[in-house]
Each structure stands twice: as C-alpha cells, then as structure tokens.
C-alpha cells in the first residue's frame, strides 16, 4: 500500500521543520548572549535540508532530513558600550549575528510548512479510510 509512504514522507518533513523551529528558538533566545560556551559571542545557527529517499517506493517518495547545522557567517553586531565588561579596547561589544527579522520570517515559514505537512498526512489518512470502505454499502 503505497499511501503509507506518505506518512513517512510527511513525518520526516515535520521533523525537519521542527528542527528548524528549534534553531530559530535558540537563535532568538540567544539574540543578546554576548558570551557563549566557547567564550565568543553566540553565532546564529541555521539548518540545511536535504531530500532523502524514503521507503521502498523508489524515486516517488522523497522525505526530508537535516543534513547539517551551520553557523551563520555574518560578522557580529558591534555595539558601542564602553561600560560593558565585555567591551574591547575601543569600547565596542560584539553581539551575536542573529537577525531577528530573518528569524521571525523563518519561524512563520517553518510553522506554515509544518501545518501543510499535517494536512497532507490527514488527506492520506482520509484516502486510506475510503479505501477500507470499498465494497461496503
């Protein structure tokens, strides 16, 4: 029953989208973390998606997986604040390179994609239920 592959495809996409949402949450939470675990300012994390074969259906079913989590290469945001203990000799503090607007749009896009995949799953479920009713009534 090939329709069951749809569940695997959609759930892999939902997992990937929730990982993206996780990265967004981490980025927004650390938008002002001037010191992270390595002593440097926090760097924005972005997930990279990749299409991956799912099930035994050959080329028809392609799920999604997160290939890697990359750190944003943008330079840190320099803010002039000489009173800050983390300021350099010129009085500038390196803030994380998190772009809040970008993260918000990322969040909306991830949640929309997640919803769409839930809908696809529900459609497949309805189709399977109708298949079970063939010959009844």
């Amino acid at each position: 029953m090939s329709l069951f592959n749809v569940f695997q495809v959609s759930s892999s996409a939902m997992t990937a989208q929730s990982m993206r949402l996780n990265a967004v949450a981490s980025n927004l939470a650390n938008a002002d973390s001037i010191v992270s675990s390595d002593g440097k300012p926090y760097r924005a994390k972005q997930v990279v998606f990749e299409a991956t074969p799912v099930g035994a259906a050959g080329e028809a079913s392609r799920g999604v997986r997160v290939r890697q989590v990359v750190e944003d290469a943008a330079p840190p945001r320099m803010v002039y604040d000489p009173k800050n203990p983390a300021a350099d000799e010129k009085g500038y503090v390196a803030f994380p390179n998190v772009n809040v607007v970008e993260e918000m749009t990322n969040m909306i896009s991830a949640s929309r994609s997640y919803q769409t995949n839930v809908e696809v799953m529900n459609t497949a479920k309805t189709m399977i239920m109708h298949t079970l009713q063939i010959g009844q009534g």
Partner: protein
Amino acid sequence: MNAMTQEVGNLAKAIDLRAYRHQVLASNIANADTPNYKARDFDFRSALQKATSGQAESGGLALATTSAGHIGGGSGAGMPGLQYRAETQSAVDGNTVDMDVERAQISDNSIQYEILTRLITDKFSGMRAALAGTQG
C-alpha cells in the same frame, strides 16, 4: 461477467496511479524548503492509457544499486516515469516547488481518488443487485 471484472480492474489501475501520484505530490510538499529540490509529477492521462492497455512503463533503464542508500533508476514496477514540473517562479535556492500548485493538485488528486473508491463500490453493489435479482 468478464466485462465487469475488466472494468473493476481498470478502476483499480487508476486508483493505484492516484495513490502513486499522492506520494509524489506529498514528496514535493515535504521538500518545499529543500534547496535545489525540483518538483516532480507525471502525466496522469498517458500513464493511465499505458496501464490499461497493458504496456506499463518499466520506468526506463534500471541502475545497479550496491548500497542501501542508492536510489534505483527506475520507478516502482509498472509505475510511470517522473518528469520535472515546469518552473513558474524561480527561487534563489534552486527549489521549484510552487506551494499553490502542489496544494491544488493534492486536493484534486484526493478527490479523484475518492471518486474512484465510490465507483468501485458502485460496481460491486451493481453485481450484488444482479445476484439478488435471481433470488426469490
């Protein structure tokens, strides 16, 4: 009787293709945010014609697979080969999935699938009525 089973067989082939197409469309929607993913689909009319006339495509030449991660060159047995959808708006990341098109197609596909399940049910109730007519 032969004609009736033939008809149910054709409907079953159509429903198989609809289920296959649902998979393809679900993959397109799942990969809406995957860089360089190209949306795929197949021509339902010609695929159904080929399936019902008994000359189903083998999906082209098969590729040798030496690892579990390899993707076979051909599609599933008797399933039509996939084509890339023509791009309407190009994206910076090379992705060609147009969400509006895919969602419309997936709704269309599921409704057509339901129609086919009803048609098969109707065929069976027709047979049942014919059987009941001989009794009493």
